[in-house]
């Protein structure tokens, strides 16, 4: 009886694992095959990878899209971490009744669905377009500005600051460090793991963001990777081998981050719940 249960457990988990991995295997195989072979369901690696890659580089602006996505993701990550950790630290270390109330109000914004504020945001950026063309519609800045300040990261850093030894702040003051000095020279280096986890979430969110860039970025040379893939996928005569190559390239950064930093990755996801 126990043995049968065991076998069943392994069988069940194996099927689940196979279903989970299969689309990845399929996209890796299809990346090396011609479009017709992909549609005919070929599951053996082919020899057309270089051809697909060349077509992708020639026929689409994937280079520009990669650069845009990368630029947006890096700037977003740096600013998100800086602003979020300043606030998380500020709310926890300089606690006061007023700030606690304010914190709870800010946290409420986590409940606001993006779709509910998308149109006013679009109009806001439309209005400033004339006066500030650098951050108006169809600029990379417009694509990341509304995403860098989120209650989630303030909450995340505050939760983690609770585990930060507050004596270090006092010790810093006694050593004559200013309040900013304590933050930048003591807090930041001590909280490296927290920053790493937050960086992974912020980078992934930005890299994969679709709806807002779709709304604000119009010209082809402003495209990000998700927009490019979405456009390729919606084409009437899709070249499947080429699309699969693009998808693999788009998935690579996040998959790499996951495999290289698995522990931080999971810690980052959990961070929002503990405490």
């Amino acid at each position, binding site marked *: 009886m126990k043995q049968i249960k065991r076998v069943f457990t392994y069988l069940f988990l194996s099927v689940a694992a196979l279903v989970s991995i299969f689309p990845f295997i399929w996209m890796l195989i299809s990346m090396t095959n011609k479009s017709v072979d992909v549609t005919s369901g070929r599951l053996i690696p082919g020899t057309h990878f270089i051809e697909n890659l060349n077509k992708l580089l020639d026929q689409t602006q994937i280079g520009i899209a990669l650069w845009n996505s990368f630029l947006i993701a890096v700037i977003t990550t740096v600013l998100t971490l800086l602003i979020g950790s300043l606030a998380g630290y500020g709310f926890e270390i300089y606690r006061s009744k007023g700030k606690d109330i304010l914190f709870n109000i800010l946290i409420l914004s986590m409940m606001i669905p993006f779709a*509910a504020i998308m149109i006013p945001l679009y109009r806001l950026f439309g209005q400033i377009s004339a006066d500030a063309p650098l951050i108006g519609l169809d600029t990379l800045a417009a694509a990341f500005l509304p995403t860098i300040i989120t209650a989630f990261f303030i909450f995340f850093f505050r939760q983690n600051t609770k585990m930060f030894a507050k004596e270090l702040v006092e010790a810093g003051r006694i050593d004559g460090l200013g309040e900013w000095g304590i933050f930048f020279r003591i807090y930041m280096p001590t909280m490296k793991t927290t920053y790493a986890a937050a960086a992974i979430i912020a980078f992934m969110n930005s890299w994969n963001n679709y709806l807002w860039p779709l709304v604000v970025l119009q010209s082809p040379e402003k495209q990000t990777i998700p927009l490019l893939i979405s456009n390729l996928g*919606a084409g009437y005569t899709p070249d499947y081998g080429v699309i699969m190559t693009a998808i693999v390239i788009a998935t690579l950064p996040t*998959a790499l981050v996951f495999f290289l930093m698995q522990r931080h990755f999971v810690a980052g996801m959990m961070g929002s719940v503990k405490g």
Partner: protein
Amino acid sequence: MSQTSNPTQQRTFAQKFRKNYIGWLFIILSVLGISLFYFYPMVQALLLSLQSGMGSTLEYVGLDNYVRLFNDPTFITALTNTILYLLIQVPVMIVLALIFSVLLNDPTLKFKGFFRTAIFLPAVTSLVAYAVIFKYLFGNDGLVNDFLLNMNLVSEPLNWLSDPFLAKITIIIAITWRWTGYNMIFYLSALQNVDKSMYEASKIDGASAIQQFFFITIPLLKPIILFTSIVSTIGTLQLFDEVMNITSGGPGNATMTISMYIYNLSFEYTPDFGYAATVSYVILILVVILSFIQFRVAGDRD
């Protein structure tokens, strides 16, 4: 005596004041940012929802837009679809994730790391990328149909994307594939903190594995189940990327979601920002109501 205490008092007061004032500097950017990018648009959306007109020529029409909602078949379809996804997909996914996490929490299980990584892997893909892949997998001549035909489970290819019912199923399968592993990780880490002696004690009392699951595991994981179901509910109510890239809301409006309808109203059809804002308030109201219900149902203990 007073001469010595006075400067000290002054200094502590000055220090306190400085500490307080600096504290505000740490948080000011976030307060301004969230006010500008969340609360201000919320208010704007409310004002917009009371206006109507094409493009930028808007005028106040009172509650007309809200009345229009009830007579708008596309909105009603989008709302029904979204709620349908929610009612079917979220429970299925949470139960699956719970089963995986309980099975993987067994210390005697082999290849645990492999199973865990494999099942979590879908969570690292971008929504657009996996949506495009699922569109092809579930195409008429896609691999899913190939597989079903080869196994003799169906006699002719199923119209996964062009049949109104099957298209919804495809969307549900896709979201479940993407998010089950993600939720599983939360349950697994919660299970690791569970006191093993509880299971041993219940075993001595003659509890079966299924009884243990319902009477120990579920109650212990209640807070985290609540958390994940709220997160999933909010996510599903905003469903956009997958539907846009797998079916574009079709066939007809069979897979249309509220978010997609808002997008279409604003950027695909002749823009009607006022009515789109009205529809977007429906999502907000649903998020608030459903979160409240979930707290009520699951959070009564605290």
